[in-house]
């Protein structure tokens, strides 16, 4: 499985190289339009060496960290509350149904108007975008807790607080972590768009620059770096999940 993955990657690389270098040789399209792996590598090296790449990466990640972080805390608190309090849930549900169909990016210009062109607008936007889906997912994870688990604990003497602390939280935790993973992926998805406009730093801005100055190689590089970032963080989160939830593994039954 691993091997086929790597082979496939090499295959794609090979096709890309063939097409782009072939284009260069045959002059079908403007060479700049179809950047070769070499071109992309050059841009990567250049921006990495003079530090601009890292500056942009850190900026983007920083915005995500703050926006997503705040939204996650809020989603956890409110999600737990909504799950355990029927009136709160019934009140919040219609509002969420109302806001949900509106593409978050539609609010980006409004955030720019409200918060100006600085960091605050990006962070607030990320927070807004990631809050709702995470809130819904956290509440769903808590609601899914099996009633028989609650009954078992109660018949062992658990009171209200015990039930929350020792049954509901551990039982809902896997689902909550999935919700957080979802939120992070979403944050990565929209940060690019948010940095297209009214930003002077960040990976999204770097990519937009590639368009402004007609540097497709820079666009491709930026996109690949983003993809890599997302994969790495996702892999890290999955690994953390696997360690935390060792008890979920299907082990051998003796």
């Amino acid at each position, binding site marked *: 499985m691993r091997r086929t993955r790597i082979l496939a990657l090499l295959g794609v690389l090979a096709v890309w190289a063939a097409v782009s270098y072939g284009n260069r040789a045959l002059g079908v399209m403007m060479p700049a339009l179809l950047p070769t792996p070499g071109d992309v590598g050059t841009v990567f090296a250049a921006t990495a060496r003079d530090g601009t790449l890292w500056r942009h990466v850190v900026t983007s990640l920083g915005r995500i960290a703050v926006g997503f972080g705040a939204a996650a805390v809020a989603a956890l608190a409110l999600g737990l509350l909504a799950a355990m309090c029927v009136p709160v849930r019934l009140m919040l549900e219609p509002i969420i149904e109302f806001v949900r169909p509106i593409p978050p990016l539609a609010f980006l210009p409004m955030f720019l108007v409200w918060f100006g062109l600085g960091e605050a607008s990006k962070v607030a936007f990320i927070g807004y975008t990631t809050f709702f889906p995470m809130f819904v997912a956290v509440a769903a994870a808590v609601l899914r807790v*099996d009633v*028989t*688990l609650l*009954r*078992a*604990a*109660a*018949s*062992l*003497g*658990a009171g209200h607080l*015990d039930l929350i602390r*020792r*049954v509901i939280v*551990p*039982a809902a*935790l896997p689902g909550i972590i999935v919700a957080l993973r979802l939120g992070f992926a979403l944050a990565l998805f929209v940060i690019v768009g948010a940095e297209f406009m009214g930003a002077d730093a960040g990976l999204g801005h770097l990519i937009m620059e590639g368009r402004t100055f007609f540097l497709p190689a820079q666009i491709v590089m930026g996109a690949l770096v983003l993809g890599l970032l997302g994969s790495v963080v996702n892999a890290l989160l999955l690994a953390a999940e696997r360690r935390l*939830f*060792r*008890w*979920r*593994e*299907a*082990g*051998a*039954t*003796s």
Partner: protein
Amino acid sequence: MNIHVRGLSRTFIAQGRETPALLDVDLEVAEHEFVCLLGPSGCGKSTLLNIVAGFLRPSAGEVRVGGRPVTGPGADRGVVFQEYVLFPWLTVDGNVQFGLKLKGAPAAERRAVVARYLELVGLAAHAEKYPVQLSGGMKQRVAIARALANNPEIILMDEPFGALDAQTREVLQDELGRIQRVEHKTVLFVTHSIREAVYLADRVVVMTTAPGRIKQVFQIKLPEVRDRFAPEFTHYESEITRVVKEEVAKVHE
């Protein structure tokens, strides 16, 4: 502690329709007695158990345990479920000491109690395993150990061996019989299996189809250690089967 049920009724309301599950049930379970509830599907035996456990509230009637009315679940009534319901994020050890931890028992005491009951159910070697690594039979033994370790006066069992294959079932019945001879708890045991009921119970209560009522009660006068193939055993089996068959026929009408 004994169980006292008088005039118990329970109706379920779903989508505007009322379904009576239990109607005017009277039942007494004396201290240290092992009583089986037997009946066709839908006769309300699980509902009755759930009400005694405090998971459901009665529509009418009263339930008292040790003289005190039942207002909710509690550590005085341990429950063993058909689906085991172990806490998947805890090891076997963690599961068995769950009730003790809630009570704030000191670590040394917890360790001793866990060791004792794991020994009793024969799972001492698996204390550090997670439920997902256990077979069905093992999981149910952990569930029994967990309930017993909390030292409840009453144990309620809802078809605990229903999800197991026939062989494991009989092995666990033997185990349960052995444990009861040591622990002498008051037990209310729900089952489908007449054989199981005759094997384990002091009294067998046969219930009617919905709405559930008590149809007939059988006093099982057999020695403590029972032989499934003894003629007296078979006699009880056929007697009870006859009565149950009447009710089963009504379900399939």
